[in-house]
């Protein structure tokens, strides 16, 4: 998802630069037409999509407020008239709050007609958490999910890898409880999923 987001931003930038040159006068007209059809007035399609991504990057995860829904990798697609999201865990109660928060942010930014759609497939995975998101988790005191085949968990407080699991289930479905044997601090691990 993060890769998709970055790719669509890149291509939109490339297109808007192209649209600004004299060689492609028709392109900008097309953008305006499709944007009008999509319901975002006064903006070209790509500008609208860029704006929407910017709005979404300000929507915090309700349970881990240091990372945004974009960092978390649950925003799957953005078009001028639709934001597609996917739940993390099947029964995560934050899912409904997230949808409400996104709705409020879109309304406040002037996009009341942009729909929110939820898709289940393909299922969300922690691989979709952005590198920036992982760094923010660590700074917040939550060990980010391990990469595939990575066994050691580093203590987010002191960086030691002398850590152990206390319980596989934590305060939310996505976290496990761990403890550091060096600094003796307990901490949450974002589970690989």
């Amino acid at each position, binding site marked *: 998802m993060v890769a998709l987001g970055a790719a669509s931003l890149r291509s939109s930038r490339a297109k808007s630069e192209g649209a600004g040159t004299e060689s492609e006068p028709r392109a900008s007209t097309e953008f305006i037409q499709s944007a009008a059809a999509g319901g975002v007035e006064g903006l070209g399609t790509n500008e609208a999509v860029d704006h929407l991504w910017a709005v979404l990057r300000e929507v915090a995860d309700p349970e881990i407020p240091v990372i945004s829904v974009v960092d978390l990798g649950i925003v799957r697609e953005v078009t001028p008239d639709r934001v597609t999201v996917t739940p993390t865990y*099947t029964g995560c109660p934050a899912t409904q709050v997230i949808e409400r928060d996104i709705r409020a942010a879109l309304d406040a930014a002037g996009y009341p007609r942009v729909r929110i759609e939820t898709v*289940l*497939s393909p299922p969300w995975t922690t691989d979709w958490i952005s590198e920036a998101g992982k760094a923010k988790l660590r700074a917040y005191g939550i060990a980010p999910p391990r990469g595939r085949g990575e066994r050691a968990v580093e203590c987010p407080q002191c960086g030691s890898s002398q850590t152990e699991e206390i319980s596989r289930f934590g305060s939310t479905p996505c976290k496990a409880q761990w403890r550091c044997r060096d600094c003796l601090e307990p901490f949450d691990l974002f589970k690989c999923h």
Partner: protein
Amino acid sequence: MPSLPPIRPEDEAAARVRGDTGAFDAPVLEDEDSVRFDYLLRLGDDSLILGQRLGEWCGHAPSVEVDLSLANMGLDLIGQATFFLDYAGKVEGRGRDGDRLAFHRDVLDFRNCWLVEQPNGDFAQTMARQFLFSTWQKLLFEHLVGSRDELIAAVAAKAVKEVAYHEELSAEWVIRLGDGTDESRARMKEGLDWMWRFVPELFEMDEVAQEMAQRGIGADAAAFRPDYDRKVQSVLAQAGLEAPNDQRPILGGRRGHHGEHLGHLLAVMQFLPRTYPDATW
């Protein structure tokens, strides 16, 4: 507020054709959506009822970590139930959503297996139930990932990762208690003895299950019975426990025949929305 949907002329006509079998609301095998609705209730009700059972532990578990584990598993299960029952309501097409199906049906309309409605008992009995169920549910969902029904396949693909945790956690407790003190071992043995007679129902392939498997929507439980038996035997061996003797299997949950425990569970679970039908947060 009635707990059943109103009886329409079509229902009465169907009842006449079916004669005196007493099951005019039984699925019509020739009608795919009718069978699919029943099958979705089975999937959703299993998760809903076990999720509610686990919720009963909240604040009572042996330690705070275990309390969180049980609540988390319950949450996963209720998440599954929400997807399956909401979808069941759409397939049924009579305006019922997941909440309506969860809170405004009576015992006879529930299609869960007997295993999940069994009382929590002590912690060992709860873990015995969880292990026997989650081991089965994980294999089931692994098969349902290939379902022709897109929503069933998507929920299964998502939930199977969560159920893997349930299976692992409960297997670890079966081993730890079975291989623990005389007291913990005796309790785990009792828990398994209680739950064992409800296992055959998980693999019962009645007309609805067969129809769904043939149509590529449901799973053929017989296909993963050997995997299930192997897994259970291996965990029991690590726990130093023998499998209980096979008893007369208890069947019928899939057709609405339940024990006395389910009604009590529903009374607690359904009280609020039935007493205050328009209550919102």
